């Protein structure tokens, strides 16, 4: 068994994890930054080809409190307003820092270009041109991480379990993916930055390594999760014709940059039938658009593949060429000519509002365990405002790294490790290896069961839910955990043992699926991204956050009051002037 030790151990090297590494190193800590995939290639950041919200005020006068007001309004009464305020106040600082690091925010005449994204009161969202925001962000942070003194990077390290000693997070156990070796990491503080759970849905915009592992590790370590019932569905994910080599959520920026029209199967506009105005601005809120599209399809007014049409046919060619640029050629390779035909779009699982419950310093209730990025729950309430995800990765990543460094190097009096025994590491990995059946045929492995879980979550725990369907899903999820998982044949140690990795991933995914479903059953109202067909109205008594913990192997839910800010936004603006 290989042992390594560090001050701050960061799990996940997307935007949040890399920012945490830079911040922790800046604070003087030794950092180990690990990713199951390759550093900066996995997670949601690389797929975020969209925009980033921050009140930098380059396009029109803005103040972070206006961004906060929009974030809280989108959150439908459930935002942890302390976290939302941190997100909005520090967002511009991080955007400007990324600018100094030459990320390449799109500019005109020296000023950053900001677009008006859905749900925002004004033009607030910066981007890197031609759907390059996520890759540019990943490349920039990757460069900063590589230059950071005291940062060790490890690709291909699949972390399985946080090890807790005397009530504190003391390390972790991992598998080196290429060699199959068990790795024991001793750490003064740990940052969970391994993203969300949208891969648990059949139609999703997730990287493959987003099956809820950060949440599952947090639960098993004793941390609380919050708001797990709130899964954001992106309204216009690509549906048809088949599109490869491009992000399925790519259409949104073009929709509001050039004004794409959403049409039902009869080629009629329909958003206005659902209480939203889309005329001319094309900025109907995401939950409204998802709702309207799903209802049109249910009413038999869908497009051939079960979505709706998105049409740019009315836009002049020169405008299309100006705004789409090289994308026109990439679309042509997919056989798509936007001047001649509309494409089909449908809602798609995109982001998880729920996550690990943290305080303002990104601390979980387990001392030494921090969270960052999409892994954090609370800042976005019941619906996330568009553009807040990358901002959140930067802001919460920076804070988690900084405060974890302080915890590891100061609060603990310089203690950066405890003697973790190898037996506990082996025990943490023991579950599936006891079920290895030599020579077993490997059909019906974890990948097949994951596919069933994705269909189950889509059908029964998706955009529109009923108590009955949720109960059916919960029963099947628990049956999978109890029966199917233990029946599965897994090959013994091997280099790049994909079947074994899939088993662990599925175990995490099932625990998260259970948490989402249980939370959705308990919230007997409709609010934001949680819509119950059997209980269509919001109820004031549910203007609370739901927590989930793991106790004696069972998930237990509870309710807490929503953290509110005590100042008025007008006071903040006045104080700033």
């Amino acid at each position, binding site marked *: 068994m290989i042992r390594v030790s560090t001050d701050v151990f960061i799990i996940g090297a997307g935007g949040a994890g890399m920012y945490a590494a830079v911040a922790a190193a800046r604070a003087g800590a030794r950092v180990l930054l690990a990713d199951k*995939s390759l550093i900066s*290639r996995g997670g949601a950041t690389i797929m975020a080809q969209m925009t980033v919200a921050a009140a930098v005020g380059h396009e029109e006068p803005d103040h972070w409190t206006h961004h906060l007001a929009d974030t809280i309004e989108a959150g439908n009464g459930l935002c942890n307003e302390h976290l939302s305020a941190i997100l909005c106040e520090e967002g511009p600082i991080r955007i400007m820092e990324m600018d100094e690091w030459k990320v390449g925010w799109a500019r005109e005449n020296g000023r950053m270009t900001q677009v008006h994204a859905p749900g925002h009161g004004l033009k607030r969202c910066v981007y890197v041109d031609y759907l390059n925001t996520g890759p540019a962000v990943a490349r920039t942070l990757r460069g900063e991480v590589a230059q950071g003194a005291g940062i060790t990077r490890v690709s291909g390290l699949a972390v399985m379990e946080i090890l807790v000693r005397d009530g504190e997070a003391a390390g972790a156990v991992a598998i080196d993916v290429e060699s199959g070796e068990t790795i024991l990491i001793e750490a003064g503080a740990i940052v969970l930055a391994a993203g969300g759970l949208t891969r648990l849905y059949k139609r999703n915009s997730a*990287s493959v390594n987003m099956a809820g592992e950060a949440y599952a590790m947090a639960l098993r370590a004793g941390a609380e999760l919050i708001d797990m019932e709130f899964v954001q569905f992106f309204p216009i994910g690509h549906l048809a014709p088949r599109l490869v080599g491009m992000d399925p959520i790519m259409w949104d920026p073009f929709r509001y940059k050039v004004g794409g029209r959403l049409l039902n199967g009869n080629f009629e506009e329909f958003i206005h039938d659902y209480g939203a105005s889309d005329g001319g601005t094309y900025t109907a809120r995401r939950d409204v658009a998802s709702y309207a599209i799903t209802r049109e399809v249910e009413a038999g007014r869908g497009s051939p593949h079960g979505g709706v049409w998105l049409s740019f046919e009315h836009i002049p060619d020169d405008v299309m060429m100006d705004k789409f640029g090289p994308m026109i050629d990439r679309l042509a390779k997919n056989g798509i000519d936007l001047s001649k035909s509309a494409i089909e779009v449908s809602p798609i699982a995109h982001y998880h509002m729920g996550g690990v419950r943290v305080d303002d310093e990104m601390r979980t209730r387990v001392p030494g365990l921090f969270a960052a990025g999409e892994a954090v729950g609370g800042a976005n309430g019941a619906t996330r405002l568009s553009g807040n995800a990358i901002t959140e990765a930067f802001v919460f990543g920076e804070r988690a790294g900084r405060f974890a460094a302080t915890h590891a190097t100061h609060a603990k009096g310089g203690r950066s490790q405890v003697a973790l025994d190898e037996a506990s590491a082996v025990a943490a990995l023991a579950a599936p290896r006891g079920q290895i059946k030599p020579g077993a045929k490997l059909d019906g*492995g974890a990948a*097949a069961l994951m596919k069933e879980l994705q269909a189950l979550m889509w059908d029964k725990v998706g955009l529109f839910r009923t108590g009955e369907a949720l109960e059916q899903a919960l029963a099947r999820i628990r049956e999978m955990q109890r029966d199917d998982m233990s029946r599965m044949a897994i090959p013994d140690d091997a*280099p*790049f043992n994909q079947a074994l990795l899939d088993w662990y991933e599925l175990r995490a995914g099932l625990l998260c699926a259970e948490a989402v479903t249980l939370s959705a059953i308990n919230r007997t109202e409709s609010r934001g991204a949680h819509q119950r067909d059997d209980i269509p109205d919001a109820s004031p008594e549910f203007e609370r956050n739901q927590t989930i913990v793991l106790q004696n192997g069972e998930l237990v839910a509870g309710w807490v009051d929503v953290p509110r800010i005590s100042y008025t936004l007008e006071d903040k603006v006045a104080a700033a002037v």
Partner: protein
Amino acid sequence: MSEKLHATLKVSRGAEGDAPRFDSFDVPFEDGASVLDALVWVRTNQDASLAFRYSCFNANACKECMVRVDGKTEYACTARLKTGIVKVEPLAKKRLVRDLVTDIVPPKERLRGEG
């Protein structure tokens, strides 16, 4: 009764040092499908142990899925599947780890243990 189109993937298998072998898998063919779609279909439906790298899915963002398709180096996510036989092999100039996985990890991102 309509005959559904299919492709036959001939996939190079085995770890570094093993005798090289190819396994054949019949996979359903759909218009516009990628080679990565077919590999994922095999892992899900035919052989859970088939090893290949990918992180983003068909977006060509992570750049991890590079393999040889019919002898040509391509990203599996942008290489289109065709009907008939499609040969998929690991990158030729990288050290083989297993199946289609080669060692593409930058040297500075390798684990260095303390023994």
